[in-house]
């Protein structure tokens, strides 16, 4: 019973609306869209009936547009979290379960921030003598119009509340996850795909914050509410940017593999073209998140990778004295070959990789720069040594004779 409720992951407002036909007949996403479209139609209809000024109808439509965009962004949360695979760390799994549980709690905490915004806002609007109502609806508006505007205000406030709720929770989750990740042992980790999902949701929330700027014209005559919207925008945007940044710093490799990749000096790159395979040793660097290797512009493997960018990349520790302690990791996936076009966009990551190469292989860098070498071997950055990034899809890890498949 508990389980099915957890799987639902719906918020109260969407759940109630979802039970009323015709919304109950549609999928979650379309029911929200239809609902807001209906609001728009009713709004325009009422506008004509009560002879509302065009600018007011524009304001109303703007508010509905904001509500639609917010809904579409925030509604990605549940499906994304639903396909989330459990992290391979007990603590991190518990954290994410707790995060999901609070986010979609049975007691519907998510409606609280919305109410906390809605009630004082209505109070402010009707009793504080602001001229907003008059600006929107004219003098002595009809009760139906007032009801409609209240509904619209609730739609906006409720979603603003969701924005605050989700972005604050996301920041808390990211900070906790980063801390837990520092205490991992052996093969504990949260897979790369899941970390990217979390980051994507955070970036959605950044847009959520920015979209609220569209509300500013509606409140332009009221300095106080204007400021409130700005504060809201800054809060949501900044917490989400910080949350996404923290997630980007969570290692996607479990500590055993992280250390192996970090400490080893050589790797092998396997390529294949038309079934003919090719394998050579390469030097590589790891910045904690990305793996780069270097290849000569003349190398056969470069030509192969340009035609088929699927690779196998292996890093190992070889020790004949203790064979059962040997470790190896193989990444299969694709490569991104950096070229001149990438310089403007990825200059910093390219320079960062180059710096790591100079630090990890000082002798190599020195020797490769000597002009007595064949041209293809000279370490003239970018021009004759090509930077390649490994983008793993699958990880196989060997410890002694044991083979373990590690989710990415």
């Amino acid at each position, binding site marked *: 019973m508990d389980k099915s409720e957890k799987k639902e992951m719906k918020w109260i407002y969407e759940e109630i609306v979802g039970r009323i036909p015709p919304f109950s007949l549609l999928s979650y996403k379309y029911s929200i869209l239809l609902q807001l479209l209906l609001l728009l139609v009713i709004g325009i209809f009422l506008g004509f009936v009560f002879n509302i000024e065009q600018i007011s109808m524009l304001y109303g439509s703007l508010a509905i547009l904001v509500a639609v965009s917010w809904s579409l962004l925030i509604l990605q949360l549940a499906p994304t979290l639903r396909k989330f695979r459990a992290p391979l760390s007990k603590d991190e799994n518990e954290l994410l379960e707790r995060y999901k549980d609070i986010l979609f709690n049975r007691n519907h905490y998510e409606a609280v921030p919305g109410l906390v915004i809605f009630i004082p806002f209505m109070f402010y609007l009707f009793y504080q003598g602001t001229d907003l109502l008059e600006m929107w609806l004219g003098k002595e508006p009809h009760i139906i119009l007032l009801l409609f505007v209240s509904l619209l205000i609730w739609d906006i406030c409720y979603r603003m509340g969701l924005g605050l709720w989700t972005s604050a929770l996301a920041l808390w989750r990211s900070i906790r996850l980063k801390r837990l990740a520092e205490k991992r042992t052996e093969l504990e980790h949260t897979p790369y795909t899941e970390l990217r999902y979390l980051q994507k949701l955070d970036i959605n929330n950044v847009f959520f914050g920015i979209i609220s700027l569209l509300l500013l014209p509606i409140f332009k005559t009221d300095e106080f509410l204007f400021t409130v919207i700005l504060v809201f925008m800054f809060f949501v945007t900044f917490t989400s940017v910080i949350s996404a940044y923290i997630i980007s710093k969570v290692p996607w490799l479990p500590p055993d593999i992280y250390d192996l990749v970090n400490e080893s000096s050589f790797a092998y790159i396997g390529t*294949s073209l038309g079934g003919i395979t090719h394998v050579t*040793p390469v030097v590589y660097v790891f910045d904690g998140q990305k793996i780069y290797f270097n290849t000569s512009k003349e190398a056969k493997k470069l030509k192969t990778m340009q035609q088929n960018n699927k690779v196998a990349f292996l890093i190992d520790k*070889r020790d004949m004295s203790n064979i059962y302690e040997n470790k190896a990791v*193989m990444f299969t996936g694709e490569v991104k070959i950096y070229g001149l076009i990438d310089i403007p966009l990825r200059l910093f990551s390219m320079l960062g990789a180059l710096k790591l190469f100079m630090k990890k292989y000082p002798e190599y860098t020195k*020797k*490769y720069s000597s002009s007595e070498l064949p041209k293809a*071997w000279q370490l003239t950055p970018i021009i004759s040594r090509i930077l390649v990034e490994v983008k793993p899809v699958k990880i196989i890890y060997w410890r002694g004779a044991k083979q373990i498949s590690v989710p990415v």
Partner: protein
Amino acid sequence: MQIPDEMRNILYANYFGYVCTSDRFDQPHLTPVFFVYDENSQKIFFITNERSKKIKNLTENPNVSITIDIRDPVNPFNNEGVMAQGTANITDRAPIYFLSEETLQLYYDIYLEFKSKYQKVIDNKPMGENDVIIQINIEKMVYWKGPHFKSLKFSKDSQVFF
């Protein structure tokens, strides 16, 4: 024809080989293996579990390459290695009494060679139940030392085992 000394030395003096296979979608796969080089037949052999991904790939695509090298983390000019490219034969996977005499002889010879080479590691352990011997029929071999390359093509008439 004998392969040049520097290539032979590498093949004899090193314990790890890196085998690259690829599946029918051209997705490469790479694993470290123990291997032996047989001078007479000019072939490389390694043992692997018949359920491994390598075997699955080799049944889809028999092309294989193996790299054996010496790596110097300080001086790249000391880096030395060979890469052999060719096709793989997988020995019959059947109970011993169904195997042909040549295959049995091959198992015996290769296994003895493995034993003498990897004495320290495999002790007196018999070959695993699901292990099979893979024979690499070398078609091309590349040798490098520092920035210098040398490449060698093999004729197809070299002796075939099975």
